[in-house]
């Protein structure tokens, strides 16, 4: 069933149910009111009848008859019966009793008043005390007018119900069509988007309703899809470009060497050139391999308890040797008293690579300006903050920095392949940690790494 028909059906069913309930209540209360009114009438007539017949000495019967004929008139099927009644000496004749509804007389005697309905005839009974004795006055009649009114009301309600059902169906259909037309439009627009025209976007509309929210969600998804498509094609482009550059250099130098005979010194210089390019190629291939290994696969990884402060000191030493001009300041002022808070469960070699890459980037992109490394711990996690005063990352490129080979638009003149940070990111993720980068162009970058400590990691596993 189409959503449009489903909506209409639900709408019609709900309205019909509500209407049925309302109409049933109207009819029920109307019938109750009519019956009550008719019993009241019978009661009044029974009282008048009793007074007239039993108090003839006190009232003129002719006057009563006249009043009755002119003003009160007789009701359809009206019967008035007065039985003399004496509890001890003159019990009621069983023949009379059998003509009345069962238990009716007993009820009159008990309550001094009773009313009941048998078929379409209404009965009212009174227990009347007089100076001549006790009497039972029973009055019965049929409420033809009341029944007529109720039948009429029922007819009106049934007609109203069916007419409103048709109107509701039409209205519901119109509403469903109107409500779902934007969805049909979206379906149409989405169908038009394929891998070749991923730049197309849906019309988000001006209103702030669910439909425009859906369009915005679709557009966000398309943005992500487009980015990942771009990144994928960029990765292949960048990788082949990076691999080709050293190869071209090597081939060029070999060609120069083979061109003609040269003195030994120039061969040595050419071979040195080839060696440096081959080393570059080696670094690149190793990096790629490591990236592939850490691709969210931590099976078979050697996990040991590691003191992060020691790792950081060692990395600082390593960087000091390679780049003596660095200004890395390790700030261990806020270390916890309990050394257990400084220990994380992880692979030392990988964590060293991650911290080294980030620290190296911080020095590289800030032209060896001051880099602050702060280590602190709370009950569950270890926080490592690395802040530099470097060139920063443009805001629109922040989302791509974890992709291999991506290089910031403002980092063209700085040496690198663009997989230091992606590798660090993956290593931190493997250790169930978080890596967050806050950066502003020209102001610097803050890299925050949060890794669960040994206690937390053990609890988790």
């Amino acid at each position, binding site marked *: 069933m189409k959503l449009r028909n489903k909506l209409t059906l639900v709408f019609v069913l709900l309205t019909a149910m509500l209407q049925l309930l309302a109409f049933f209540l109207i009819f029920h209360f109307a019938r109750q009111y009519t019956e009550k009114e008719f019993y009241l009438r019978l009661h009044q007539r029974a009282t008048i009848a009793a007074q007239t017949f039993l108090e003839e000495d006190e009232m003129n019967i002719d006057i009563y008859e006249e009043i009755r004929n002119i003003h009160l008139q007789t009701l359809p099927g009206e019967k008035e019966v007065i039985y003399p009644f004496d509890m001890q000496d003159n019990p009621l004749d069983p023949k009379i009793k059998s003509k009345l509804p069962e238990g009716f007389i007993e009820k009159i005697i008990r309550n001094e008043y009773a009313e009941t309905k048998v078929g379409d005839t209404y009965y009212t009974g009174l227990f009347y005390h007089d100076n001549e004795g006790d009497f039972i006055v029973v009055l019965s009649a049929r409420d033809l007018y009341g029944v007529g009114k109720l039948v009429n009301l029922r007819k009106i309600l049934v007609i109203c119900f069916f007419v409103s059902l048709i109107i509701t169906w039409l209205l519901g259909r119109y509403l469903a069509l109107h409500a779902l037309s934007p969805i049909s439009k979206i379906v149409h627009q989405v169908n038009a988007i394929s891998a070749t025209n991923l730049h197309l976007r849906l019309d988000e509309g001006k209103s702030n309703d669910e439909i425009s929210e859906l369009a915005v969600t679709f557009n966000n998804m398309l943005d992500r899809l487009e980015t990942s498509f771009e990144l994928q094609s960029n990765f292949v482009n960048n990788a082949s470009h990076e691999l080709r550059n050293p190869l071209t250099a090597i081939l060029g130098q070999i060609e120069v060497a083979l061109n003609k005979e040269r003195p030994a010194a120039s061969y040595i210089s050419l071979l040195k050139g080839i060696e440096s390019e081959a080393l570059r190629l080696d670094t690149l291939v190793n990096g790629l391999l490591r990236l592939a290994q850490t691709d969210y696969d931590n099976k078979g990884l050697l996990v040991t308890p590691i003191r992060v402060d020691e790792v950081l000191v060692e990395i600082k030493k390593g960087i000091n040797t390679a780049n003596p001009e660095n200004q890395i300041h390790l700030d261990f002022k806020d270390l916890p008293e309990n050394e257990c808070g400084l220990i994380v469960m992880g692979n030392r070699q990988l964590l060293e690579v991650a911290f080294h890459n980030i620290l190296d980037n911080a020095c590289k992109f800030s032209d060896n300006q001051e880099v602050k490394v702060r280590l602190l711990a709370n009950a569950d996690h270890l926080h490592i903050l690395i802040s530099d005063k470097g060139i920063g990352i443009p805001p*629109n490129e922040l989302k791509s920095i974890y992709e291999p080979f991506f290089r910031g638009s403002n980092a063209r003149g700085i040496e690198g392949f663009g997989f230091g940070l992606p590798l660090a990111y993956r290593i931190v993720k493997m250790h169930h940690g978080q890596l967050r980068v806050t950066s502003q162009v020209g102001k610097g970058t803050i890299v925050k790494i949060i890794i669960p400590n040994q206690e937390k990691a053990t609890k988790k596993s």
Partner: protein
Amino acid sequence: MKKILIPTDFSPESLQLVEFALLNYKETPLDVVLVHGYRLPEIYWEVLNFSARREIQRLSNPEFHKTRQALLLEHKAEIHSIRMELFTGNNSISFHNFVTQLDISDALVPSENFLYYPDRRSFDPTQLIRKSVKEVHEISLNGKVREVRKPQFSLLNFFW
């Protein structure tokens, strides 16, 4: 010591702006004032019983406070305090008074619609900050994607 005003929607993500403040004010320790626009209730009884502390508690979640505490811990030397204020006025003059009273001359705002105000009484004070504070740093958060679900009332919810 520098007092700096930052708009907030009491979400942990909004506290990223505090980190940007650290990048922009490197040399001085900061007193951060997070401001959230809030319309006072119309009912007299509710106004009498209004408590800014209580409203802040209601609008913020434990995750926000956890992130705030973490920030204070991580940047002990740079951040002196992070306090939260509700701005209950409705025009730039009252905001100007608010800023003067707090003795603030610097502010940091996101240049795009980064903050999200789901409460019907809340509003974004960014425009007022731009008008009333002398030194305003615009932070572009282009790369940050925030996926927020808007709790919207809809008749369609009755059907499914």
